[in-house]
């Protein structure tokens, strides 16, 4: 292989004048984490609402939830980001569209909202499955105790359902982090984008991508360890994984 390796490249100053190539990658890492966290908050909030809607007895309400999930699941994330970024500002009233286009850090906000809503459909499906997996007696017991629907979700169903779906939620969170790299297409220079920039400036393709790979693996390991700890901390004694 006649490729010229140069691992010292990371400590050489980058041409963009902000520091070394390593600094470039690390600033990308920070942006990846920020985008993923904001997207995850949005995904959890909207996903929880829609997931609950889908389990309610009302046909109409559960159909709204179904339509929401289908809408966000049946289009590629990349296309959804294009819709938010290029199409939405044109369809809004002129002033509002202009404000959206001129907003500082537009790619960051667009990516967070776009990825957040995309992931919320998946969170909703997980939550629906979690609520569905609870024994029917729980809902009945809550009703028998005189709890309203809101109360039975708030105090009985959701606390159990969220604990049950913690493991799949972990992988959805990891997916959220990975999906932030799609935002490279709307100009968000996150970790993958910075690796690409390092490659373009320095021609050291494989070093740049290796570094990005290692950083992604590192995020994965940290998230998995953190979520394992959370699972143990929240486990209900005598139930499923509880000890």
């Amino acid at each position, binding site marked *: 292989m006649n490729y010229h390796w140069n691992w010292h490249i990371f400590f050489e100053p980058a041409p963009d004048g902000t520091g070394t190539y390593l600094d470039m990658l690390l600033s990308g890492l920070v942006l990846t984490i920020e985008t993923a966290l904001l997207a995850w908050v949005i995904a959890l909030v909207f996903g929880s609402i829609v997931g609950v809607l889908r389990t309610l007895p009302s046909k109409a309400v559960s159909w709204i939830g179904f339509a929401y999930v289908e809408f966000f699941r*049946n289009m*590629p994330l990349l296309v959804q980001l294009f*819709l938010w970024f290029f199409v939405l500002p044109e369809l809004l009233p002129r002033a509002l569209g202009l404000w959206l286009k001129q907003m500082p850090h537009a790619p960051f906000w667009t990516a967070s909202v776009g990825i957040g809503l995309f992931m919320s459909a998946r969170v909703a499906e997980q939550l629906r499955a979690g609520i569905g997996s609870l024994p029917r007696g729980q809902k009945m017991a809550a009703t028998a105790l005189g709890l309203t629907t809101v109360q039975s979700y708030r105090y009985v169903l959701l606390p159990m359902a969220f604990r049950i779906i913690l493991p799949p939620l972990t992988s959805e969170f990891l997916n959220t982090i990975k999906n932030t790299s799609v935002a490279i297409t709307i100009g968000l220079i996150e970790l993958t984008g910075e690796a690409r920039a390092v490659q373009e400036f320095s021609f050291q393709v494989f070093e740049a991508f290796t570094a990005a790979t290692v950083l992604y693996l590192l995020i994965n390991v940290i998230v998995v360890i953190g979520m394992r700890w959370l699972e143990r901390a929240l486990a209900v004694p005598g139930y499923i994984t509880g000890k």
Partner: protein
Amino acid sequence: MFANFDFDVIRRSLGYLFFDGMTFTLTLTGLAALGGLIFGTLIALMRLSGFKWAGRIAGLYVDLMRSLPLVLVIFWFYFLVPYIGQWLTGSSRPIRVGAFTSSLVTFILFEAAYFSEIMRAGIQSISRGQPAAAQALGLSYSQTMRYVVLPQAFRNMLPVLLTQAIVLFQDTSLVYVLSIPDFLGAASKVAQRDGRLVEMYLFAAAVYFVISSAASFGVRRLQTRIAFVH
């Protein structure tokens, strides 16, 4: 809102969008699903083989692929495949690899990790009596797998495999980062050439939506039918 909506730009580019773009997307999806399934099944067999090192290597491969964003993997292989080609053919320089080959290799290797997890679950769902009975009949390991275990695992997992294929269909749009004219790439080219981003992206979104919805509707029906047989 839709006052200056130009439907004609869509009509004019239909041929390019579907004959060039969609053909690329569907060919890539089909071949990558097939290749990913074959390679993924081999990885699953490696993991379940009982050979410690084979299992460990296969596990590492799956974990690595599943922790990386597809966009990064696409970039990796885009630059790596010419060197792999050089190594395979023994030529003196990195060989030129076309956009289609490069993305096909990427998607086969990436999707294999996901298909292998599905096939592994499928193989493990077969009751232990089945391979035991096959062995009692005198079938060899490869015969047991080929004629007894894998057909059933494949059948049980068919809905999940097809769902993964739909995800793959949507994911192929990411070859956009290599400026390859797949369906979305073609739409984007027309959009930028004619300054008609709104029309083209809405149309592309609608096409993806219709195809994916129809496919997942089909998978759901298949699921109930398979469940009924059991």
